[in-house]
């Protein structure tokens, strides 16, 4: 346990704090601003459910990690988290609701630029799509639900005070669920990077139950988020719930529900699987973000009422905050990485090497890619994704983006060694018995590429074999990908030995 790890951990805590300060507004902003729930009450409920979500559901999904898990050196991940946190903090200070995930993706792009890695273009297009599609969907659902609720209310003749009670209960329940999923979904981003390097160990309380090290780590992160909620979230809450347009209590509830429905319908693989398995048409999955959906829902209700109450200037500020968030995060990250590397002599990234060896070319050919033109680059070990891409584009300029990504994936050198000691570290609950057996059968072997290990594993056990690409098989394949990632990381032979990510 080094002191630097503790310093790095603070960046995760800072990111957690920023997340709490900004994202709590998505679940409780309208409730607090419409004075239906006191800020302190909202903060307590939010924090309690955040912690529960992070510790119970977050730790369960810890193998999926967060977006920051892509960064392969801890100091680099620290700086990316710090840059994202700083950006979100600035936006929170300005009272603007922004997407923390987009700040993180922005910071990762900064890291990619610095380390010469390739930025996934789909990440960028996802951000753009979220800016446009998410508020529109939020607005449509907000308006439709508001209209329906008002119609029902006008017919149901509920007493004003009873309605007030129902609305308050609805806001508390929706807020509690929202906080739970906020904790479960975001704790990976806040603390995921530190799973392999944290100072905690499991401990049991009187043989009753055990709190795992990861749960302790996530508890720490969740507490940081909770502190963010308590200390700094009121300003963003007021922007969301009152700044764009003053909302009635029923309107406040509709906004929270509309945003949850948008998130559920358009991002749930489980729902897609359920619909597909019942022979029903599926809803296309699109990238969605809470902050954008909430703002969209408020606008939707505003437009339904004629649009007169909407303060367009505030809305303009929010939209500009969305655009600037990833940009600021990437610039800050790039500059900070430069300082960290050159002033503090920290390794902010591990070089990724690529090679088109004979086996790689064979593998590509088997997957239907014409490899003849790639011969000039054969066996040349190239450092850095961008350099490698330039090299293959030089010899084969007509490559599509998809093929380019595929070649990069296959050619990446990722040394793996199936160390018997590490096999014992495998969590039995996470991998099936058949899967563990297949790994054991490969004990002592080494591989240069991840696909080689996949081929070996899928060849020896059906449990490791991906199913045919279809909506029905999506959840299975996604889970298998996460398991594979876990195995790759476990058996990765890190350069220098200090990092295994």
């Amino acid at each position: 346990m080094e002191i630097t790890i503790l310093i790095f951990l603070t960046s995760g805590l800072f990111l957690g704090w920023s997340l709490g300060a900004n994202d709590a507004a998505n679940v409780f902003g309208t409730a607090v601003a419409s004075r239906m729930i006191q800020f302190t009450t909202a903060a307590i409920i939010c924090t309690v459910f955040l912690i529960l979500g992070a510790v119970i559901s977050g730790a369960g999904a810890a193998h999926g990690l967060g977006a920051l898990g892509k960064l392969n050196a801890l100091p680099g991940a620290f700086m990316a988290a710090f840059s994202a946190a700083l950006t979100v903090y600035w936006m929170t200070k300005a009272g603007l609701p922004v997407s923390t995930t987009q700040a993180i993706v922005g910071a990762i792009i900064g890291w990619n630029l610095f380390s010469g890695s390739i930025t996934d273009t789909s990440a960028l297009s996802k951000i753009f799509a979220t800016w446009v599609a998410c508020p529109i969907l939020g607005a449509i659902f907000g308006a439709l639900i508001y209209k329906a609720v008002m119609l029902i209310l006008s017919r149901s003749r509920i007493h004003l005070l009873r309605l007030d009670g129902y609305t308050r209960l609805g806001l508390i329940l929706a807020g509690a669920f929202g906080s739970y999923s906020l904790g479960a979904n975001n704790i990976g981003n806040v603390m995921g990077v530190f799973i392999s390097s944290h100072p905690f160990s499991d401990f049991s309380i009187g043989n009753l139950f055990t709190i795992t090290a990861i749960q302790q780590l996530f508890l720490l992160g969740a507490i940081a988020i909770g502190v963010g909620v308590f200390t700094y979230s009121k300003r963003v809450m007021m922007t969301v719930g009152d700044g764009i347009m003053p909302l009635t209590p029923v309107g406040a509830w509709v906004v929270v529900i509309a945003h949850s429905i948008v998130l559920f319908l358009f991002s749930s693989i489980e729902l897609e699987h359920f619909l597909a398995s019942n022979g029903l048409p599926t809803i296309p999955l699109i990238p969605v973000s809470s902050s954008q959906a909430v703002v969209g829902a408020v606008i939707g209700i505003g437009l339904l009422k004629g649009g007169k109450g909407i303060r367009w200037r505030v809305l303009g500020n929010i939209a500009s905050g969305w655009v600037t968030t990833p940009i600021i995060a990437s610039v800050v990250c790039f500059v900070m990485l430069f300082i960290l590397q050159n002033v503090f002599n920290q390794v902010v990234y591990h070089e990724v090497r690529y090679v088109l060896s004979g086996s790689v070319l064979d593998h590509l050919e088997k997957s239907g890619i014409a490899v003849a033109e790639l011969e000039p680059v054969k066996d040349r070990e190239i450092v850095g994704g961008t350099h490698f891409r330039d090299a293959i584009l030089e010899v084969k300029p007509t490559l599509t983006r998809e093929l380019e990504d595929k070649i990069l994936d296959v050619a990446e050198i990722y040394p793996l060694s199936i160390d018997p000691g590490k096999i014992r570290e495998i969590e039995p609950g996470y991998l099936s018995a058949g899967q563990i057996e297949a790994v054991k059968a490969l004990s002592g072997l080494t591989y240069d590429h991840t696909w080689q290990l996949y081929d070996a594993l899928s060849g020896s056990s059906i449990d490791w074999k991906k199913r045919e690409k279809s909506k029905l098989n999506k959840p299975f394949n996604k889970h298998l990908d996460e398991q594979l990632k876990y195995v790759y990381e476990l058996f990765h032979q890190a350069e220098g030995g200090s990092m295994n990510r």
Partner: protein
Amino acid sequence: MNLKIENLSLFGKTKHIEGMIDDLMDCISNGAMKFEAGVETYLNGSDPNRCDDTVHQIRDLEVEGNRLRRAIEGQLYTDMLIPDSRGDVLSLLEDINYLLGLAEDIFLAITVENPQIGDEYREEFRLLTSTSVKSIEEVVLSARAFFRNITAVRDHLGKVSFHEEEADQIAVRLKRRIFSSDLKLENKMHLRYFVDKLDRLADEAEDVGDWLAIYTIKRSL
């Protein structure tokens, strides 16, 4: 024991306040009916003690109304209920309770000042009183609707205006007749004073209705 069960249930407190609001509305409409009955007793020249009893009854209802209003006010504020329409609800309850206070004042003045109302004016005094009371009753109905059935508020408020106009016309007609009669000027002025007072009851009811119309618009926005 009852109170404890109320507090334990999820919407116990809400139910309790709902009950208090209904009780307050009952007080106002009972008071208005008592007022009408009291004026009738006076016009019939019955036992003055019966009129005094009616004054006491109206006063008791008004005191009860005030107590309920304060209790509702306290609960709404301490429990932070209906934050967006709390101010409107409290103004409404205050205004509507004021109508009962006004009715009590008028009837007390009648019993104290004992105006000499001739037989030829009694029918129109009766009509004026009942029209003003109707406007109060409609305001109470619209206030009840404000809490439970907002779309019906407008219908009741339309009736309030109708009764107020009726009351105005009756008052003008009555005053013309009084002043064109052979009564002494002091008698004429004394009767005019009571005609105006009875007419004012309908005017005040209409004012409450006007504010209620605004609260209703605010709620349906």
